[in-house]
Each structure stands twice: as structure tokens, then as C-alpha cells.
């Protein structure tokens, strides 16, 4: 009997060792409706700046990620209650969100671009002046800026909020709003796709994006994410990722580049992947 228990114990120890040897997989929630930070490529892959930064951090820190498409409305709830482990969804670090989740070090500083119809003669000042209707995606920095910096300060503009950014742009095209305030990279992509649109200016909001984990960081993920982020920024990969996603390349081109670079990802070659991605996205 004692012998049997001993064998059982040994098996248990071996089993545990085997489990811990395999890399842990963490669930990463992302609202994949927001290029170029996160979106679903034509082939179904979930790609984007946030997601690749998270993938490369995971490689550097020796864990695996499983990216799950999430509705923005419940990302904070489900990361907060631990149903998913990490949020990577272009989330601005704010005090109220800190109450529900814990943020990593910032990885991106967001500026807001103001889009108007090219034939409208509006400049950045007149586009945001009294009497104007301004569209923005609900819960984004753009909407928050219009509320806090204009409406709360007594500027008589009307903020029209949309569940999705492209619907705000569509309403601008349809003449229902006078301007749309949105993160610069997405705005540049929209303007590049439609000659009737133009960016009249960029507001330096200086708000910072962070990854976030369950309150109290029960899995001890934040040190790894921060460490990995630091390593990534110190490598050539960081500039390559920015070139690839923020360089104004058309989304389909980035998607093709991503597919071509994917083998580097599988081989856990961080700089190789980022280099291939940037090269593909900027190729003539």
C-alpha cells in the first residue's frame, strides 16, 4: 500500500512537472473592430498593432496567447472577473478603469484626428465650434475629449456617439455630422480610402494605451508584460511594428504582409516577424 502511494506521488510530481514545462496559454480579449490596432483579416486571422505587440511579448516572456474577439462593452467586466486574463484592445489608461482592472505600462500615446468633408471649408477651429455636430465612437478618447474639452467647457457642440467608428464616418459622408474625432491611425486609414474626406488637424490628447489584467493580477502577468514590452521597445521589432501598422499602408496590404510573416511568428522569431511585416506593408 505504501509503495503504491509512493508510486502515485511520484507520478503526480512528474505530471506536475510536465504541465509546468508546457507554456501556459492566457486568454486575451480584444474588440477586433478597430483597425489598425485590432481587426479581423480577410482570412479570418485576428491581427493589428495591439495584438502583435501582445504576441511578441508572449514570445519574449515564454507564454502563449489565445486571442478572443470580444464586444467592447464587456471586455472590462470579463477581464475584471477573470474570465479572460488579458485585455489588448486600444484601451486608454484611466483612473475609473483602474478600479476594475490593473494596467500595464503604457505602450502607445494616442492623438485624435479631426476628419471633415474635404469640400466643407472647415478648419480645425471651425469644425469644433459652437453649433457643430461632432461624431465619435462611444467610449473612446475622441468622445471623451469632445465632452470634457468642449461641452463641459461651455462650447455648444453636439456630440453624436456611435457603437462603431465606421458608422460615424458613414454619417459624416451622409451629411449627418460635421466632423468626426477619432484616433489618428484609424482616421488616416479612412481618409486614405475616400478622397472626399480630409483631416483638418490632430489634437494632442496625450492619452496612453495600456494592456490590462484582472484586478490584483492573480496570474502575476503584469511584470511579464512590462518586462516584455521593455525588451520589445529596445529591439528593432518595435519600430518595425509601428512602420507596418501606423505607416498608412492599406489594410489589405498589411493583411497580406502578416500572412507572409506568420512563419516567423510560429518560429518565435520576434525581430524576424516584425521586419518581414514592415517590409511587406511598405513594399511598393
Amino acid at each position, binding site marked *: 500500500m505504501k509503495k503504491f502511494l509512493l508510486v502515485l506521488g511520484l507520478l503526480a510530481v512528474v505530471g506536475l512537472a510536465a504541465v509546468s514545462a508546457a507554456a501556459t496559454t492566457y486568454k486575451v480579449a480584444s474588440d477586433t473592430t478597430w483597425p489598425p490596432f485590432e481587426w*479581423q483579416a*480577410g482570412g479570418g486571422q485576428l491581427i493589428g498593432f495591439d495584438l502583435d505587440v501582445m504576441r511578441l511579448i508572449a514570445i519574449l516572456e515564454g507564454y502563449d496567447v489565445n486571442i478572443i*474577439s*470580444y464586444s467592447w*462593452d464587456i471586455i472590462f467586466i470579463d477581464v475584471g472577473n477573470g474570465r479572460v486574463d488579458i485585455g489588448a484592445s486600444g484601451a486608454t489608461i484611466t483612473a475609473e478603469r483602474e478600479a476594475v482592472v490593473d494596467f500595464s505600462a503604457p505602450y502607445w500615446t494616442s492623438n485624435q484626428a479631426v476628419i471633415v468633408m474635404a469640400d466643407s471649408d472647415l478648419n480645425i477651429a471651425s469644425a469644433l465650434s459652437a453649433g457643430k455636430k461632432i461624431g465619435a465612437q462611444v467610449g473612446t478618447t475622441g468622445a471623451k475629449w469632445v465632452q470634457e474639452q468642449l461641452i463641459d467647457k461651455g462650447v455648444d457642440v453636439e456630440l453624436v456617439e456611435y457603437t462603431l467608428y465606421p458608422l460615424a464616418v458613414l454619417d459624416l459622408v451622409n451629411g449627418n455630422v460635421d466632423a468626426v474625432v477619432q484616433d489618428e491611425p484609424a482616421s488616416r486609414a479612412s481618409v486614405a*480610402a*475616400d478622397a472626399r474626406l480630409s483631416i483638418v488637424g490632430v489634437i494632442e490628447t496625450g492619452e496612453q494605451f495600456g494592456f490590462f489584467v484582472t484586478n490584483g493580477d492573480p496570474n502575476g502577468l503584469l511584470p511579464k508584460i512590462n518586462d516584455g514590452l521593455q525588451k520589445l521597445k529596445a529591439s528593432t521589432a518595435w519600430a518595425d511594428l509601428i512602420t507596418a501598422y501606423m505607416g498608412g499602408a*492599406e489594410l489589405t496590404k498589411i493583411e497580406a504582409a502578416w500572412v507572409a510573416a506568420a512563419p516567423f511568428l510560429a518560429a518565435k522569431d520576434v525581430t524576424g516577424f516584425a521586419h518581414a511585416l514592415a517590409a511587406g506593408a511598405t513594399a511598393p
Partner: protein
Amino acid sequence: MTATEILWQNVRPLFDALPVTLEVLGLLLVVGLTLGTVLAFAQAYGRRPLRALCVGYEQLFRGIPPLVVILLFWNGITPALGVPVPGIVVAALALGMRSAAYQSQIFRGAIQAVPPGQMMAARSLGMSRIQAIRSVIVPQAFRLAIPPWANEYSSVVKDTAFICVIGGLIDLTRQALMKLAPLSMRRPIGTQLILPYLIILGLFYLALTYGGNGLLSLLERRLSIPGFEMKGKVER
């Protein structure tokens, strides 16, 4: 690439997402049908406390919007059970339990629409109550229930669009929403394809609604008996 090609490229993923919508739809109908039938019989033939319980259930689930029921279930069930429940099951359970409240009303109404003399005649032949319900009441109530049930089917098809708030569940609506931004950033087309794309999404739901209704009216015709015609048709 032409606009049509781009549109088609973005429609293909909708076909990939269709099974998710269909699975939730199928599961929720099974949940709603089973629970709805039980509730209907409990209300038509049960004792007063049981009936009151059923009425309470109906009022609860009919009074809460589908989106809120889904969010309540998604955030309530897994923590309550202590085990992770797949999103598809949560969605089907939430919408199914909601639909049960409506379906039980349909079935109860159909049971009560069978004239009381039918039960009396069955009992006068020596049938037990259960036999009478099974051989006389149910076959008649079932036929009466098909048209209003088709209505409920159309309504739950559209309810499935709300499951897009559940993490990881990519149904028709969620898939379409995910495609809007990339679609609107195609050069030089911009936002022009958003409207046609949303129309195509609508067509998917129309196909589900009318396809299902078509099957149901086929069933109704196969089971049709003189005297059980749908309202609005001329009686012989």
C-alpha cells in the same frame, strides 16, 4: 478589385458565422419548446401554486429585454456554477428560457382553445385524463399552435443578433460588425460598401426567417385537417 468582389470577399465570412447563429437558434428553440411545453401544461392542468409559479416565470422573462437576459446569464451562470459554461450554451439558455415564456403562452392558449367538450367526450368514452390529453387535446392544440409558433420563431431569429455581446462568439451580426471598419477603409471605396453590406446581413436574417416559416407552413399543410384552417382562410 471591383466593389462587387470586395463585397463578396466580406460576405464569405458571414457564411462561416452562420453555423454559430444556427446552433444558437436550434438550441434555443429546443430549450424554449421543452420548457415552454412543460410550463403550458403546468398552467393548463396544474394546481394553483404551480400555476402561479409559471405565471411568475413568464412575467419575469417577458419583462426583460433579450440583451439584458444574455448579459445577466453570461455574468451570472458561470460564477454561480463555478465552472466555465461555453458562450454558445449560455446564449441558447438565456434566449431559450426567454422564448419559453412566450412559447408557453402559445401552447397554453392552444390547449385552452380546444373546446372543453372534447375533453368531456374523451372522458365519457372511458379515457383517463392523461389519455385524453395525449390523444385528443394535444393533437388539436399542436395544430392550433403552429401559426403563432411561426411568429415566435421569426422573433427569436432576430433575438440571436444580441448574442454578439458574448465574448468569443462570432455570430452573423458580430461577424458583420467586425467587417465594417476594414470594409470602410478599402481604397478608394471608403464607406460606400457599408450600406450594401448591411443589406446583405439583413438578407441572411430574412432567409432564416422566411426559410423557417416556409418549413413551418409546409408542416402545417401536411397536418392540415378540415376545421383547423389558419385564421383568415375561408372556412369550407
